[in-house]
């Protein structure tokens, strides 16, 4: 594969930077793909819904109540979405700290995925804020609520987005053909990685810690003082399952961009990741058992919520864990993908059980999201995929960096 086909920016072909950007902003490829046909109407619809939401208040399109003030937008978009974005810190840890170079080729796409996830989930958070014009208050320092876990999480989101942007920035520089900037930016990678991993440890667990004060409101099978630890450990395999899942789709959709070498490496990467997932899930399952035994909630198992808990633990933690172990030993790529999907479903279940399903499980009127909340959630995901696709089609994320990167060392 020749790099010159893609590196339009190598000397900008004599174009000015503005001409270049205008050209790059244009859509490429076929327009009427199935994905576009589904996503565009949903996105337009939710744009309308968002206008209504800011005009008439949150109650106009959500089912939130005084008892359940956080619904799907927090429980799924933010809490679950961030868990899936955990792949970025795990992979940068493996590649830059543990020096596992085998995984280098998927670092960029994972970091991009993580960065976009954070940008869009923080964006979804803005939709959920009743008074979003005050969102800068905890940042500009006129009112630091330092005793708040949410204060910590808000700052970490902001700082982590910056760290991930720095980690990804060499790809942007390569796209723009900015050689000196690339050199400077890639020099900052290690610092950003170390900072980013530290931040991730704290805010992945912090998202769980948010719910510590809701002690009397969350079903005892899901509430324990160890929620932060659980959230942190599960973010490891949630993120890696997402990497496996997203990787197997990207490898089909963006087939042409991936070099022969990386195509061959893909299976080895997936098998390696499945082993890490299995071990992390073993630790997680073990922790859950310990917490359960200490909680002494045996009587609760024989209730509807108890069956739901058992389904989560056995069907969506233990089973995919065994599948990961099994297919790692038998090199079964298909089963690894199945296990990854099961794991992701399990993580969604777990996060929703803490934040929505198990929250006020005993209330007379249960919170069930409206179709409008679902539509907005979907379009947040769609918009993210649009940007993701746009970036991958233009910047050297999956494909090799332009030749000048290795020339001028």
């Amino acid at each position, binding site marked *: 594969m020749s790099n010159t086909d893609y590196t339009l920016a190598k000397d900008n072909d004599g174009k000015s930077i503005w001409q270049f950007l205008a050209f790059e902003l244009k859509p490429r490829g076929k327009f009427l793909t199935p994905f576009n046909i589904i996503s565009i109407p949903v996105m337009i619809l939710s744009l309308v819904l968002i206008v209504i939401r*800011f*005009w*008439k*208040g*949150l*109650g106009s399109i959500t089912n*939130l109540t*005084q*008892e359940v*003030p*956080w619904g799907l937008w927090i429980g799924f978009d933010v809490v679950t979405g961030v868990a899936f974005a955990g792949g970025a810190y795990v992979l940068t*840890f493996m590649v830059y*700290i*543990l*020096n596992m*170079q085998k995984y*280098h*080729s998927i670092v960029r796409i994972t970091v991009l995925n993580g960065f976009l996830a954070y940008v869009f989930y923080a964006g979804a958070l803005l939709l*959920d*804020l*009743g*008074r*979003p014009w*005050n*969102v800068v*208050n*905890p940042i500009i320092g006129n*009112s*630091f*609520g330092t*005793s*708040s*876990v*949410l*204060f*910590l999480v*808000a700052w970490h989101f902001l700082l982590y987005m910056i760290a991930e942007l720095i980690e990804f920035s*060499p790809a942007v520089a390569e796209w723009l053909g900015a050689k000196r900037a690339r050199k400077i930016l*890639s020099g900052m*990678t290690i610092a950003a990685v*170390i900072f980013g*991993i*530290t931040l991730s*440890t*704290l805010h992945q*667990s*912090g998202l769980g*810690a*948010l*719910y*510590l*004060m*809701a*002690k*009397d*409101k969350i079903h005892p099978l899901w509430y324990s*003082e160890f929620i*932060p630890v659980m959230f942190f450990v599960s973010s490891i395999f949630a993120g890696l399952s997402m990497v496996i899942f997203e990787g197997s789709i990207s490898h089909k959709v963006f087939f042409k961009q991936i070099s022969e070498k990386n195509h061959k490496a893909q299976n080895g990467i997936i098998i390696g990741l499945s082993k890490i997932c299995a071990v992390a899930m073993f630790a997680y399952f073990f922790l859950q058992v310990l917490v359960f035994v200490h909680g002494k909630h045996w009587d609760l198992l024989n209730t509807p919520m108890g069956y739901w808990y058992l389904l989560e633990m056995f069907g969506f933690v233990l089973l995919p864990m065994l599948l990961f172990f099994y297919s790692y030993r038998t090199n079964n790529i298909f089963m690894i993908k199945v296990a990854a999907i099961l794991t992701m479903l399990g993580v969604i279940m777990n996060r929703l059980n803490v934040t929505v399903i198990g929250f006020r499980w005993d209330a007379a009127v249960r919170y069930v999201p409206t179709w409008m909340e679902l539509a907005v959630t979907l379009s947040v995901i769609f918009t993210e995929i649009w940007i993701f696709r746009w970036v991958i089609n233009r910047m050297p994320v999956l494909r090799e*960096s332009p030749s000048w990167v*290795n020339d001028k060392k």
Partner: protein
Amino acid sequence: MSLGRRNFFKVLGVTGVTLAIGKELRAVPKTENSIEFSGVLYDSTRCVGCQTCESSCAEANGLPDPVGTPEAGVVRKTDESHRTVVNAFNTSKGEAYLKKQCMHCNEPACTAACLTQAMYKTKEGAVIWRGDKCMGCRYCMVSCPFDIPKFEYHSANPKIEKCNMCYGRLKEGKIPACVENCPAEALVFGTRRELIKEARKRINDNPEQYVDNIYGEHEAGGTGFLYLSAVPFNELGLNTSLQTKSYPELSKGFLYSVPTVFVLWPAILLGIREATKNKHSNVEENE
């Protein structure tokens, strides 16, 4: 600018006098430092369920009139336009009433949850909401064990509504509207310390009239509103299974671990990176 000898002394004199006066003035706030948390003692054995507290609260805070009347078996709730409600309960000693509003915890979960200090525990003991700081995240509502903060879901500029112990009136030297207007003297305003003494006295004087317990003395780490009752409090719809530790204690451990992680993690990560570096040499960055 030249500063002559005369001017110098003038400035010195003025500064000295100001400092001296300043010191004298500071003697006044000294008592302010010793301000105690105020609270309200509610004696449900005296309450007749007349709803005067509800209507005077609505009037004092410019809110709509109360809806419905106390009726045993029906639980009315505070909402975004009603900061207090009185409910009736069929108890083991006949019908009894219970007033509900913000408890004004000593260490409130809502203020610990608030990332902008919009929910704020004043030194007078009232927990107030400050709209200019609030970003409407509703974490206070998630955290409050009494489910007190209410959110205006149908407003483009939503407020959090909750009892603020008539903080504006307290500042003017008045007492909360509900206390002032209660015809049955079921409500007493005072410092928390005095109120607990008063409550104990009532229990001691009439041990057969009260259960030997003050709701709010220890619940959720102690609250500004204190309850006396003739029957166990759970018969009046109060949550008696609340922890006696304050709720912010629950996330304290996590928050205390943050600085440790922040210092140790980067050091450990750098250490591991150095330890695995020998393999780095032949592979270039950002290959």
